[in-house]
């Protein structure tokens, strides 16, 4: 939880960090939120392409876009495709490619 009950705290990694900075957003960026939404809805509200995100961390736990439930007060990190490491599996950062 980020300590502010009417917003969600959002950070972006890799190119998304640059995108947030280019928009003049602070890190973390605070997005007003009144009620629960899923990961796709969060990206719509942030104006971030679905293809630019492979997985999310919600309150430090990795979860897929469709499975995520984001509530006011949460901290969310956007993980783009392209993150290496054995932890991709150990953390659950993996989205099955379309068609596989």
């Amino acid at each position: 939880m980020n300590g502010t009950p009417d917003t969600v705290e959002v950070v972006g990694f890799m190119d998304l960090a640059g995108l947030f900075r280019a928009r003049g957003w602070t890190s973390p960026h605070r997005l007003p939120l009144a009620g629960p939404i899923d990961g796709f809805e969060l990206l719509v509200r942030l104006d971030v392409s679905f293809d630019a995100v492979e997985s999310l961390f919600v309150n430090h736990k990795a979860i897929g876009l469709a499975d995520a439930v984001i509530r006011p007060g949460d901290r969310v990190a956007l993980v783009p495709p392209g993150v290496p490491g054995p932890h991709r599996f150990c953390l659950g950062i993996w989205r099955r490619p379309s068609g596989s």
Partner: protein
Amino acid sequence: MHKIYRVNMTDLSVKVEPVPAEWAGLGGRALTSTIVAAEVPPTCHPLGPNNKLVFAPGLLSGTAASNAGRFSCGAKSPLTGGIKESSAGGTSSRIIARLGIKAIIVEGQPAGDAWYALVVGKDGVEIREETETLGLGTFATVEKINARHGEDFGVITLGPAGEHMMAISNISVKDPESKIRSFGRGGLGAVMGSKRVKLLAIDPTGGAPLALADPAKFKEANRTFTKTLADHPVSGQGLKKYGTAVLVNVINEAGGLPTKNFTTGQCDHHDQISGEQMYDNIVAREGEPSHPCSPACQIQCSQVYNDKDGKYLTSGFEYETIWALGADGMIKDLDVIAEIDNVMDDLGVDSIETPVMFAVAMEAGLLPWGDGARMLQLLREDIAKATPLGRLLGGGTGHVGRAYGLTRIPVVKNQAIPAYDPRPIKGIGVTYATTTMGADHTAGYAIATNILNVGGKVDPLKNDGQVELSRNLQIATAAVDSTGLCLFIAFPALDIPACLGSVVEMLNARYGLALTGDDVVALGKNVLKIEHAFNLAAGLGPETDRLPEFFELESIAPHDAKWDMDQKELATFWNF
């Protein structure tokens, strides 16, 4: 005609031997581990005459295959007391493979005080007494050998730490820019130093492109393989732009970034030492964000990092090094971390074992947390010169922790635990505990297709499924380590079916075989079993397949996680 060079340092003789039939289908880790298991008494002293140091290119090294420049080095480890295989990039693997050399075995031990250089060529090895480079760092040694023999020679060398037979020492391999890559882990530099070999100079004269059983099939398979590397977001984009250091922020977010000697899982200054910050610095200072560690490397996860004045500071600036210095040792300045990385490379010490050791030394009060200047001084004045304090530090993480009576000593089989805390990331904890190598994140790096249904479903904070996940990762890694391919091909190999198939096709086209994916998995299993049998005979039984007790006693923020894997469940790892 493939051959094996056997260099006997006891009587300073060399034999050129044919490759035994049972070794013909092996390369890289499969070959080094097979030779060590066959010829090294498991109970021998790692620094004594009965240990052997084995160098072997991979099965695809020397071909036109992308990312096939990896090189294996094996021996009994003076750090773990078990079998060790370490992998490096650089130029030597390709040169040696093209000379038709399957492996170089360095055995025995000379009686006197002299040091030697091994000049390797197409007809054999010449053993020459070496004086000019003694005491020099790895960079100066490479410069001397370039001047002596020519820049096209491969160079494999020790820094001062290897000459002093320290357990933190590694073996360095010249890269395409005449900088160095390393056989980093397990103290293999001490084994080479114990044989009084300062360097190997590899003469490429007479080397030739390798004969292929089916050149057209190989070319087609390599084209497919190369395309999958380019198409995948990890191997084609993420690693190329940000390197492995992109993991700093990601692992910090997961609460698995071991900080201040593993006392918490998040680091307040993570942004200052992140891959994103590193990339911004590199671009602003006109460094190179993408850089190959070996010929034909397409992924190019390495980089050249300059200081504020645009002057070279380091290259091959890896996540694990940045984590160990920046988070575990609390150094906030990325430029200082880069300078320390370069000094460690020059001294020839492992850039995981050494900074993890320093974090333990910080907890012991030997130097202040985050004091990079003092660390540089200890490296240059004590470790490089092997003062009594330098020898204490040069013994590694476990050595220093025990000397100061600490209980938080992050080692498995006496090798330092790397950059992923096993409490919130249970799967990597299983790998640390069970791998034959001692705590090693790369032991479980690659991905086998048969775990597709596991990936993405395992909960990192729970124990369910972790042993099976780690087992499959380790089997696949052992197979990839035997091909000479970079482990990072694992990412497209998971997600793009044509990738793994093209690797098998390249092996078949190279050697005229009819292997299937199952055969490659079987190779990986066999490697692990050979290594495990060696370790059991060396005295590393099931009781050593465990994490340090403090992981069970101390929870880690932000998940308040402890290590709670049942030891009996861990023991099922070897049920295959």
